């Protein structure tokens, strides 16, 4: 055992570069595997995981407190099918007029009196401030990506108390818009009670309904005022997560494949290049088992160190990365629900060393069986050449000899080259896929949010008081258009109307100003006459509406017929957009809720915002930032692509190191007959560039195929249809650049070993014979 350890230690010390490569490759591969597995894990069921972690309610039920007492509700919930229950909590409905001081709560809101954020069901995440503990305090339900700058402000309940905002909290089940202490809720005139249930069998809507019926079966008729299951919520809230999942899955799978391939290549190659050493060990009297032990130890030491450190690095990298990816609105995952689960770390910590050992085992067992004399001669006796026909053809080709020699080299070691090629192919596939994804998302972004630069709202909140604008609606639009830098202003109204013949509410958006606010037309055309509207794909799907269909919209007893003339790429399943005359025909008193301003080229958004505030103190201004979802996906895709390209380049680096090591004698000889260092570099780089070219030839179509498979699924996750113009991103210049990706990966990986090979001292190499 001591001899095995000594021989392994000596081998590790002697092969510093190889040991370093194994360590580096296992480190980066394990790190990327941890991130990739973490992504796959997080993307596979983000809502379910967060929902379980927070003990989300399977059913939120509202009861009429006039018909059933709290004690009876508590008794009714004591049934075997109920896994856990919270409540009854008093529940009030409050109408909040739409003003600047509504804290984004405009409309009817549900306020619940709840003693604390914890409990057996629906653990509420208080992410800013604290939970209300006494009358006069309120906590608002708001997602983490909002700011908490309203903390401490006062919220006036119409015809009710004035409450201080003491915190912001978020619950996945969205059981309330705001919470107050139980002592406060009485002042808000609660008309009902809220019960939160977790049931034993929560797989389907039918199961949940049946169990709820069991619970409420003995209650007085009409006491159950309404209920909502988590399944409907899951579908609605998981939109972004569903959009992320296919692309994260794709990256995750690519990452794992690349990592496993590279590790197998590096470790297998290390053993093969050590055949001569193995022969010497055998000649010295090492048993086949001891030889196996030496090689497994030699590989395991740097591999285990690399895996351990890679797991730590992967965790460190994954945490902010997952937060970055999953923290978007309605992603369904909360900040503390993120992180790499233990099982992923275990898989990485045990799986990667196992891959290393398995990769080393094949060639080690082969070496174990080889007679010592044959193993010793592996490095010096002439090998029967491989791919000889190809070499002969290349020798006669009209290419510089260093290039034609290099082009033939990969075929001399087909297995090693195939593994390297596979890694390059996956690297190029990743680059291609990510480039296509970014191009699609950019075209979505360019067609959407960035069509205006500033949004102005009528009303502002200054020093705790609401300030109304001094200008009227039309005056305001004219004022905003006259400020320096404004190119055009579009007023937007947004009102709930009823779709006749259905129970669904429609958000009828009106636009005044003649310009589109963005949005991408998938089919049909934009509205141009009174009575014409466009709607998003989810609205059309949900209501079974086709282009050309006529809808009846109703508001306050007035009814109008409109014709759907276009389908837009929108995620809102309630949105219908019409021109101002169409909207005012239905709602004559409609008023815009916002004014969207497109600025001239080079005009600073902030400068315009200052001008708006100076012109009327009753206006609040919001500057359009970059599209966060687009930015998140493009940013994360770029980071993942760089990581996978680095791993692929490391694979090439390793192959080039092994090849130059194996061919030291040839390189020495070639230099002895007059090959210049530059020619040696060209030859070595060419040998890998060939794999790069092949990698591009295979990887680019695979990347395009991945884009074709993944992007429509992402769009489906968001319930949108992408127009062809957004998926047809593969233009010849882009393809030409992508074709270079494989070559770039190969050249970057091969350059260092190539330069090292060029600097070989001939006398030293040949003396080693």
């Amino acid at each position: 055992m001591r001899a095995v350890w000594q021989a392994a230690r000596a081998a590790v010390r002697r092969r510093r570069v190889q040991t370093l490569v194994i360590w580096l490759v296992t480190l980066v591969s394990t790190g990327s595997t941890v991130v990739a597995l973490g992504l796959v894990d997080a993307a596979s069921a983000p809502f379910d995981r967060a929902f379980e972690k927070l003990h989300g309610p399977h059913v939120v039920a509202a009861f009429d407190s006039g018909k059933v007492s709290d004690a009876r509700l508590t008794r009714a919930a004591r049934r075997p099918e109920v896994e856990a229950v919270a409540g009854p909590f008093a529940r009030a409905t409050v109408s909040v007029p739409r003003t600047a001081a509504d804290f984004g709560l405009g409309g009817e809101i549900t306020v619940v009196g709840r003693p604390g954020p914890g409990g057996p069901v629906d653990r509420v995440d208080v992410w800013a401030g604290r939970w209300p503990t006494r009358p006069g305090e309120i906590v608002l339900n708001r997602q983490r990506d909002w700011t908490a700058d309203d903390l401490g402000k006062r919220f006036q309940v119409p015809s009710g108390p004035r409450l201080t905002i003491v915190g912001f909290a978020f619950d996945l089940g969205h059981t309330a818009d705001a919470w107050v202490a139980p002592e406060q809720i009485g002042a808000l005139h609660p008309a009902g009670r809220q019960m939160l249930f977790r049931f034993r069998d929560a797989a389907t809507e039918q199961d949940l309904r049946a169990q709820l019926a069991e619970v409420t079966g003995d209650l007085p008729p009409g006491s159950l005022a309404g209920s909502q299951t988590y399944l409907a919520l899951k579908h609605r809230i998981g939109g972004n997560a569903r959009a992320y999942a296919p692309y994260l899955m794709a990256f995750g799978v690519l990452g794992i494949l690349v990592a496993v391939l590279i590790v197998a290549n590096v470790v297998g190659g290390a053993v093969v290049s050590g055949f001569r050493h193995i022969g010497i060990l055998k000649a010295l009297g090492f048993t086949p088992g001891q030889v196996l032990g030496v090689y497994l130890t030699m590989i395991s030491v740097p591999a285990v160190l690399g895996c351990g450190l890679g797991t730590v690095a992967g965790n460190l990298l994954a945490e902010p990365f997952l937060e970055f990816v999953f923290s978007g609105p309605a992603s369904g995952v909360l900040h503390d629900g993120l992180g790499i689960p233990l099982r992923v770390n275990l898989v990485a910590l045990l799986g990667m060393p196992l891959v290393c050992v398995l990769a080393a085992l094949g060639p080690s067992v082969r070496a174990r069986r080889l007679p010592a004399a044959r193993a010793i001669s592996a490095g010096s006796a002439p090998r029967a050449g491989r791919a000889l026909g190809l070499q002969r053809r290349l020798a006669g080709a009209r290419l510089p000899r260093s290039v034609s020699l290099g082009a033939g080299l990969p075929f001399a070691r087909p297995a090693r080259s195939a593994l390297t090629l596979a890694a390059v192919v996956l690297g190029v596939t990743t680059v291609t896929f990510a480039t296509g994804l970014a191009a699609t998302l950019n075209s979505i972004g360019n067609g959407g949010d960035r069509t205006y630069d500033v949004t102005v709202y009528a009303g502002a909140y200054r020093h705790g008081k609401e300030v109304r604008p001094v200008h009227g609606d039309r005056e305001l639009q004219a004022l905003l258009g006259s400020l320096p830098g404004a190119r055009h202003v579009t007023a937007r109204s947004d009102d709930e109307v009823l779709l006749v013949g259905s129970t669904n509410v429609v958000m009828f958006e009106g636009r005044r100003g003649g310009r589109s606010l963005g949005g991408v037309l998938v089919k049909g055309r934009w509205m141009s006459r009174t009575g014409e509207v466009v709607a998003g794909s989810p609205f059309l799907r949900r209501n079974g509406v086709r282009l050309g269909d006529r809808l009846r919209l109703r508001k306050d007893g007035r009814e109008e017929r409109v014709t759907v003339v276009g389908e837009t790429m929108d995620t809102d399943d309630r949105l219908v957009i019409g021109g101002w005359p169409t909207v005012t025909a239905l709602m004559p008193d409609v008023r815009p809720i916002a004014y969207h301003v497109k600025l001239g080229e080079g005009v600073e958004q902030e400068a315009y915002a200052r001008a708006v505030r100076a012109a009327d103190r009753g206006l609040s201004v919001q500057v359009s930032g970059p599209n966060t979802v687009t930015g998140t996906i493009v940013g994360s895709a770029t980071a993942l692509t760089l990581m996978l390209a680095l791993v692929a380049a490391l694979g090439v680096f390793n192959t080039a190191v092994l090849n130059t090591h194996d061919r030291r004698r040839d390189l020495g000889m070639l230099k002895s007959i007059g090959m210049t260092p530059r020619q040696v570099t060209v030859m070595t780089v060419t040998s890998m560039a060939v794999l790069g070219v092949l990698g591009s030839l295979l990887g680019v179509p695979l990347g395009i195929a991945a884009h074709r498979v993944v992007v429509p699924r992402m769009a489906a996750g968001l319930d949108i249809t992408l127009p062809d113009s957004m998926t047809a991103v593969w233009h010849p210049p882009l393809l030409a650049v992508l074709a270079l990706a494989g070559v770039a990966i190969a050249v970057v990986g091969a350059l260092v070993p190539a330069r090292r090979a060029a600097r070989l001292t001939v006398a030293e190499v040949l003396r080693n014979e």
Partner: protein
Amino acid sequence: MVTEVRTEDAVVRLDGVRKEYGETVALDGVSLEIRAGEAVAVMGPSGCGKSTLLNMIAGLDRPSAGRIVVHGENVGELSEKGLALYRRRRIGMIFQFFNLVDDLSALDNVALAAQLTGTPARQARRRALELFAELGIADRRNAYPAVLSGGERQRVAVARALMNRPALLLADEPTGALDSRAGEQVMDLLIDLNQIGQTLVIVTHDEQLAQRCASRLVLLADGRVTGGHTLEPSA
């Protein structure tokens, strides 16, 4: 007795050449001149610096001190690229273990040397075929090193060394890896080459090879020239 050589006739001139590998001194102030058309055998015990001396002349390694001038070029002052071009144009090298590229046929191994100088493939192959014919291995031109005998491999290596018509042919134990018959053939080949004017430097342990092929003997011990004399042509 060391043969006097007039400096103006010298193809190779070594002046106080010293080579150290760490603390080991491989060559210790070697001075030597070799005239055009001479066949010089360098002999000495193992580790005396014979191969190092040959590597210095071939430009495969650089001296730690001293000057090596070959055909008027100071080899020690050449850049890496300059050394490569020097080896390409001036030197032909024969190794004990042949050093052929396993993946190339015998013909392509030989043609390779010319192709590196920019000679078109067809022209390089034509020249290689002439050499194959001269060396009596024309029928083995398409064979790969793995299937050639030791003697055949060394003939291929000689053909490669001669491909660019070098001013100086350097051979490091050229018969060391061959059986006696193959060794005889290679010796005859070297004699023939020298007789047609090829300058030759042979490093060897083999006294018979030195006696038969060389016109002058240089003795080396502990990195120094310890003696030398002219040799009578063998019958």
